[in-house]
């Protein structure tokens, strides 16, 4: 049951790549939302800033490549981590992130390919054009944009959270990040609505806004037949990507099911000692943290089982000799917290058939969480002293 150093290294790389690619896409979405929120002023302003806030990601090649690569890599890595999940009964935030992640590509495909099609037809994808598409010609797509915005934002924000929270002294960052994460999509949605109100024709109750120098005023460059072909192509692409992404997710789930079915064996009997001690018996194959959560036992875990934060530490009172030695990731985190040798990360140990007795180091309500216990802060203390 011991993991090889290679797989450990690969695990660390995978996490880092996941965060990196996710960050790139989060920045992109944030900029896009800022662009949308300019709609609160006027569609003209939105379009004036389009090149800087949105267009730069498609016109400036390094950014374009980085974004596209990020999307592919992130999706692929997500499939891998889905395959590696031991249980699908995960905390609410993880569940929300997972579902949102699955939904993003099918929701986003029409928007992305639609913009690409407009380009091919010979239209500049100005906000006037796109908004009138979403508010006048195809309001269902407009509705779906809101859903997509929320889904993508939830997915990204949860990812950011998990990353930020598992860093020391995250409280300061969080104080800024919480309002940001709520305010930006709200302002963007309101901007989207206000811009829509401007773009809707006068006879329909809107203001019938027209851009000052509309690059699309002369109509499409493509012929009528070409347009038909392009539209058909685009629809086919959207369909393929949707079916493809969902198919891959299903495939990962199926593979996971096969893997997990083969892996589950043995009974574990774990006892949590404390003010309210609890004992449960469960099938092995899960990490101790997952076992506890599955059995309704509250457990501190800031990074929710990613082995980064070290708040799920437990003191192994008995049965520890059957556990494999800490992996590199775990050892690093334990060293960071100056943990005693009998302490382990509940999210990293996978008890097999045995009896285990543990005690939480940090209470489930984080009442005794103290960041000054970490090695870094102790080092700085030593220096100042």
């Amino acid at each position, binding site marked *: 049951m011991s993991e090889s150093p290679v797989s450990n290294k690969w695990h660390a790389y995978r996490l880092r790549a996941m965060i990196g690619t996710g960050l790139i896409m989060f920045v992109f979405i944030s900029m896009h939302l800022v662009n949308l929120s300019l709609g609160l002023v006027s569609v003209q302003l939105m379009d004036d800033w389009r090149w800087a806030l949105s267009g730069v990601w498609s016109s400036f090649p390094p950014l374009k490549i980085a974004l596209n690569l990020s999307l592919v890599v992130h999706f692929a890595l997500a499939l891998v981590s889905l395959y590696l999940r031991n249980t699908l009964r995960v905390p609410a935030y993880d569940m929300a992130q997972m579902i949102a992640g699955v939904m993003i590509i099918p929701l986003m495909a029409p928007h992305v390919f639609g913009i690409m099609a407009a380009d091919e037809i010979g239209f500049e994808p100005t906000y006037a054009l796109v908004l009138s598409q979403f*508010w006048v010609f195809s*309001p*269902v797509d407009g509705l779906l944009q*809101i859903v997509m915005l929320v889904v993508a934002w939830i997915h990204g924000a949860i990812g950011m959270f998990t990353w930020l929270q598992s860093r020391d002294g995250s409280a300061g960052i969080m104080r800024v990040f919480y309002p940001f994460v*709520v305010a930006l999509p709200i302002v963007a949605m*309101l901007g989207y609505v206000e811009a829509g109100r401007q773009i809707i024709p006068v006879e329909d109750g809107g203001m019938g806004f027209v851009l000052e120098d509309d690059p699309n005023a002369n109509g499409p460059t493509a012929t009528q037949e070409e347009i038909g072909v392009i539209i058909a192509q685009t629809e086919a692409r959207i369909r393929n990507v949707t079916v493809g992404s969902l198919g891959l997710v299903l495939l990962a789930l199926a593979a996971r099911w096969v893997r997990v079915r083969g892996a589950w064996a043995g009974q574990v009997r774990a006892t949590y000692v404390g003010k*309210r001690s609890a004992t449960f018996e469960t099938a092995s194959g899960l990490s101790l943290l997952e076992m506890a959560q599955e059995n309704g036992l509250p457990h501190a875990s800031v990074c929710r089982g990613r082995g980064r934060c070290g708040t799920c530490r437990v003191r192994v009172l008995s049965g520890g000799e059957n556990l494999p030695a800490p992996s590199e990731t775990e050892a690093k985190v334990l060293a960071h917290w100056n943990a005693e040798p009998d302490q382990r990360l509940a999210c990293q140990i996978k008890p097999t058939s045995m009896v285990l007795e543990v005690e939480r180091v940090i*209470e489930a309500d984080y009442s005794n969480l103290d960041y000054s216990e970490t090695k870094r802060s102790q080092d700085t203390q030593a220096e100042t002293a």
Partner: protein
Amino acid sequence: MMTLFRTLVVVLALMIGAQHASAQFVPTTGGSEAPVVPAPSPNDVKEFLRLLADPSIQTWISDSANADGTLEDAPASSLRQQIDAQLARIGERAQSLTLAWQVLPQMPAVLANVWTTELSTAQKVRSVTYILIFLLIGFGLEWLYRQYLRHPLLRIEQAPKDAPSQKLTGALLRAAIIFAGLGIFAVGSVGAFDSFDWHPLVESLVLDLLVSVLLFRMLTTISLFFQAPWAPELRLVPYGTAPARFLHRIVQVMAFTVVAAFALSYMLNRVVELQGIDLESSLATVALAQTVALALFVVLVAWACIWVTFRRLPGLCDMQASVRSITIWRNFLMVLVGVVFALWLAGLFAVMWAVLVVGLLVPGLRLMRAWIDHFFDQSTAALHEVHMAEAQAALDAFAEAEGNGELEEGEPQPDVPEFADPYAATRPIVQRGTRFLFIISAVLLLSGAWGVNVFDLSSDRSIVGRILEVLIDSIVALLLADLVWTWAKTVIDKRIADYEPPVDGQAPGPEARMITLLPLLRTILMVTLLIMVVLSVLAASGVNIAPILAGAGIVGIAIGFGTQSLVRDIVAGIFFLIDDAFRLGEYIEIGDLMGTVESISVRSMRIRHHRGKVHTIPYGELKSLTNHSRDWVIMKLEFRVPFDTDLQLVKKLVKKVGAELQANEHYGPAILSTLKSQGVRRMEEFNMVVGVKFMTKPGEQWLVRRDAYQKVRDAFEANGIRMAERNVKVEIEGGDHLSQAQRTAVAGAAQEAAQGPQGPQAPIPDEP
């Protein structure tokens, strides 16, 4: 500022809307449903007030009223007429139901028609977009709020709690936090809602939707408050996590069904109202048809919920109840729901409410009782464990001692500590209090359903009103008296039970005084409560109690004059007890009488003289009282020694004796300040008087005095100090020539001269 005002208006409108929603199932005097009327605008209200102030309108109103002030169609008076009217109403109701049944199949088509004609597709989809956005804004703000309170909330939920008050405070705090979040959600979504442009139809529908979302969330929050499916530490109900989660889900389903039914019924009625002219049947019928369909739906869901609950629950919380009783309760509830629905269909709303309230009262009371019991049991569980461990330890020690044969004779019982329940007094009070609230709210609900204003009953002259009034008044009086009595009784009994009589030889503590007062207080309270209850029941049932009170007053005055001294005794006694002048077992002195207080009664006390005589003294006779048993006693002793005694030696010897006394194992601890010499107190004709004194706890001084005398005497003798004796020196000038017989005669005369005038000494006071 304007937006704030608008938001306020919208919130107000929401609340009014909620009241309308409840009005749907609340009885109306007519049989059929009235069409929904929107709330009047502020302008309308102003206009109405202006009209009311108009003199011509006032004259018209007074003209159209009868001479006695009632309006024309007074309710049918005789029973027969009432029954006829009721039957006619049921008949009408049945007719409108039949009509409604016929209209029902057409409803979907009508609704679809309204939906398509009123709104374009783009508008519809945009409306959905708007709805989505304003709900999202509400949720976003609430989420933000919850993030800031995440850690406090976690701490409240996870911290171990033992006392019920802790649990309740935690649960209340959590509910407050969640409700504040709901408020933020409401403000956020209503604010966003207000900033959008709405089609009038959509606007009303969206408002309905918003109210339903809020209502549903409030209901689930209440369920969360009691069941806490994810926070076992805060759970107030007596079952585990699995049944709590299951029941929470059931509550959610029921809440969703009911809220959705109300909301739909309102939305549909509004749509029909907009489009109603096209239909051949009247608006009321259509509205009724929808309401009936939705009510039927609610009833079906309720039945399903009851069925599923009774099927799953016994397994989830391994109940001990028999299959039979479970089946009986299940069938009872299902029949109750069915009967209520049938009565509602028949339009007998008052009866419906009566059946519902009475039907739920009995199981509700039983559940409540079990619930509170569990609440306290759970809180004392930890204490029980500690107590069991202690008792086990005591038993083990006893068994060991028995095995070793170390037991003393006459102590065959192991010394097992009794379990001290910290809630022994609180539990019955909470039980009675909740029962009181439960019954009162049921009565209020019932009277509301019957259209009787409880607080205005005296103006109602009908028989039912009278009976209800008497019943309600009596029940309230009884319950209140019961509440007060239970509280007083448990508190008094607990104090009496906690009292430990003083061990022999020790002065009784201040509790002894309360023990004498408390039973008296209890009796007085019981009599007072009884009289008050009887009088208020009599007063409620129309008996004029003024003569009784007057009679009681006169008799009271007569008795008062006759028993003046008795009353004086009792009152004086209470004040003596409050002053803490004496307690049971103390040695007191009243005038010439002295003795130990043996018993304290209402009127008099009994003291026993140390020689066995018993004195009974009414409190009224007590002017002043001397208590010998308080805190300390100083005893002074005197020794007469000749003039040539070495006073330093005396001092040293007394000090030595004092140390010996202090070291005595029996009375040593009772000596507060041991024997010490006070030096020469005075000089007498033939000797010096050396004073010594000591201080002891009351009651110990006699024994110490006895030993002190003995020991000092022995010490003096051992050290060659004589006690002075009275001796007379007779000097006869030139007496050398006296014969033996003459000397004897002279000595006799001298002795007589020395002793003669003094007489016998007064007796020293007895010691008890």
